[in-house]
């Protein structure tokens, strides 16, 4: 009987473990599924804000417009129909508020009850008009031609150079500046963190005496535990003004500031992982080198670093991974301008910072919301690629032994 209960206990525990494993795996998969379902939704949307109409006169030969053309028109960069393949005539831009220029209040009606007919008349009358108004004022027998914009394309999304997710009448969803901003900041971070981290780990693993090492290593690992918002605050108060002064910039919030902060944040990972890798170099290997008359430094760069190179690469990749996904600190110091960066001294905006900054004001289910999820997908794929590289590098390491 006792034995039966013992077995029962084991079975219950086994069952619970299996269950929690299954539930966790399913949850992870569900999160990924949700991310991609929302994110890919953006590609079945048109860039026109929901409930808006873009219309032209029926005689107008221009039948199609792209989102960026619409933006150019509203920015007055395109002012003539012939730039869009139409007749040579200036574009007459009409927004619903302009209706009072054409009709009196009586003609529109005190509750706008005649507005649909008036809009219809107006568009039918003027061959050069480009009208933009809410869909609720679209007359049933509308005499103009509605222009439907194409769905947002994957290529346009990834390759687009402008990110204006809330602009009227057609949003601009080009994530290239954000992707480049992320890569730019991360690249800078790794350029800062890798040499410093490598030097520190060599120092800790091979040069420092054990007392110093036993003190320094935990202190460096403590750096990993500082909340990122604190790093961001430090960056904002110390590094940003410093950069502004040193380079004589109008603002110090630049990619460089982000890179420095991220570099500092990636340091503990890089130092810790590569130091561990270096310390796994067998003593016999070091002794062999020294016994051949190599000095300490020759032993470090000819034997210890080659021996632990896969560990060092893993450390570097993990460091990049940390940098790419980091949100808060970067949001605070990079200036968040969604333009393609050309130097480290320009403001940039990263993918995580964009999501964090904009998700709060994006209406759920709307195009902006879905675009942010699509950004999340891109970030997910980037970090996935990094993790797979780590995997690859560390399996290669095992094969080498």
């Amino acid at each position, binding site marked *: 009987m006792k034995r039966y209960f013992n077995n029962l206990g084991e079975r219950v525990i086994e069952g619970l473990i299996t269950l929690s494993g299954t539930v966790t795996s399913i949850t992870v998969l569900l999160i990924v599924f949700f991310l991609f379902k929302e994110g890919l939704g953006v590609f079945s949307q048109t860039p026109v804000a929901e409930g808006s109409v873009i219309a032209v006169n029926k005689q107008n030969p221009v039948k199609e417009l792209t989102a960026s053309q619409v933006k150019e028109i509203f920015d007055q960069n395109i002012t003539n129909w012939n730039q869009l393949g139409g007749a040579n005539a200036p574009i007459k831009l009409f927004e619903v508020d302009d209706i009072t220029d054409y009709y009196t209040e009586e003609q529109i009606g005190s509750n706008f009850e005649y507005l649909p007919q008036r809009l219809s008349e107006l568009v039918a009358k003027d061959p050069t008009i480009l009208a933009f108004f809410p869909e609720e004022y679209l007359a049933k027998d509308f005499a103009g031609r509605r222009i439907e914009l194409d769905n947002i394309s994957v290529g346009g999304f990834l390759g687009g150079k402008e990110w204006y997710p809330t602009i009227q009448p057609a949003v601009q969803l080009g994530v290239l500046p954000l992707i480049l901003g992320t890569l730019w900041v991360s690249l800078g971070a790794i350029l800062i963190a890798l040499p410093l981290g490598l030097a520190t780990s060599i120092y800790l693993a091979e040069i420092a005496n054990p007392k110093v090492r036993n003190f320094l290593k935990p202190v460096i690992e403590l750096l990993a535990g500082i909340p990122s918002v604190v790093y961001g605050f430090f960056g904002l108060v110390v590094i940003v003004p410093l950069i502004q002064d040193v380079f004589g910039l109008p603002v110090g919030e630049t990619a460089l500031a982000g890179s420095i902060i991220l570099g500092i944040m990636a340091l503990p990972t890089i130092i810790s992982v590569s130091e561990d890798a270096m310390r796994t170099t067998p003593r016999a290997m070091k002794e062999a080198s*020294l016994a051949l*008359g*190599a000095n300490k430094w020759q032993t470090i760069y*000819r*034997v210890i670093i080659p021996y632990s190179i896969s560990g060092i690469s893993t450390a570097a990749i993990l460091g990049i991974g940390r940098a790419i996904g980091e949100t808060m600190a970067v949001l605070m110091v990079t200036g968040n301008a969604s333009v393609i960066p050309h130097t480290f001294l320009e403001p940039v905006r990263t993918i995580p910072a964009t999501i964090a900054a904009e998700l709060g004001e994006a209406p759920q289910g709307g195009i902006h919301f879905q675009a942010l999820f699509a950004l999340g997908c891109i970030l997910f794929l980037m970090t996935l690629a990094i993790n797979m590289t780590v995997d690859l590098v560390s399996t290669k390491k095992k094969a080498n032994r």
Partner: protein
Amino acid sequence: MNSIETKDVHLYYGDFHALKGITMAMKKNQVTAFIGPSGCGKSTYLRCFNRMNDLIDGVRIEGDILIDGTDIYKSDIQVDDLRKHVGMVFQKPNPFPKSIFENVAYGLRVNGTKDKKFIEERVERSLKQAALWDEVKDKLKKSAFELSGGQQQRLCIARALAIEPSVLLMDEPTSALDPLSTAKTEELIHQLKENYTIVIVTHNMQQAGRVSDYTAFFYLGELVEYAKTKTLFTNPKDQRTQNYITGRFG
């Protein structure tokens, strides 16, 4: 002629007195074997000759050690120069994670040799001296880890020979090898003594008998007996040596 001479060498690991006043001389171009039970200090003593003990914290050495007439613990001695002069082969094969060629060339490269042709010739010669050339000449670019244990140990010997030391220290060089590889290594030691002074630490008394000209028996940090190998094995003077070589302890 003596290659290595030591006078009253004491070595301490912290408080532990590991070598107790060892005075002996090793002849040039002869093989000297150190035997004795584990922990008797024979490896420690061997590692004094190329100052490998310097790497261990808390080691203190007293007495004089002269190699080819130079006091190697004098303050103006460059340790890396000494180690070029005194090569070492370790207990376990420890090739570098590099190609076979680069393993042998390592000592030359860290000495600043840039001449490609010279390095190639020296690598070939060293591998031939180590009786490994015929087995590896077609795969010099391959990783040293692809070799068998015995081949790896001969590679380590070739690596030590490449910088032309005058003394070769061998710390139980065959303890990790199979009997066939051991036989090959012993044969190699025979050939090498023409050009090198060899000091070998071994656990294996038969091996000491086979390869060495002189044998020293160590016990608890003391040099108990040192004589021609034949004499020591056939007619030991000390009772402890007698007990050890007849297998009564150890």
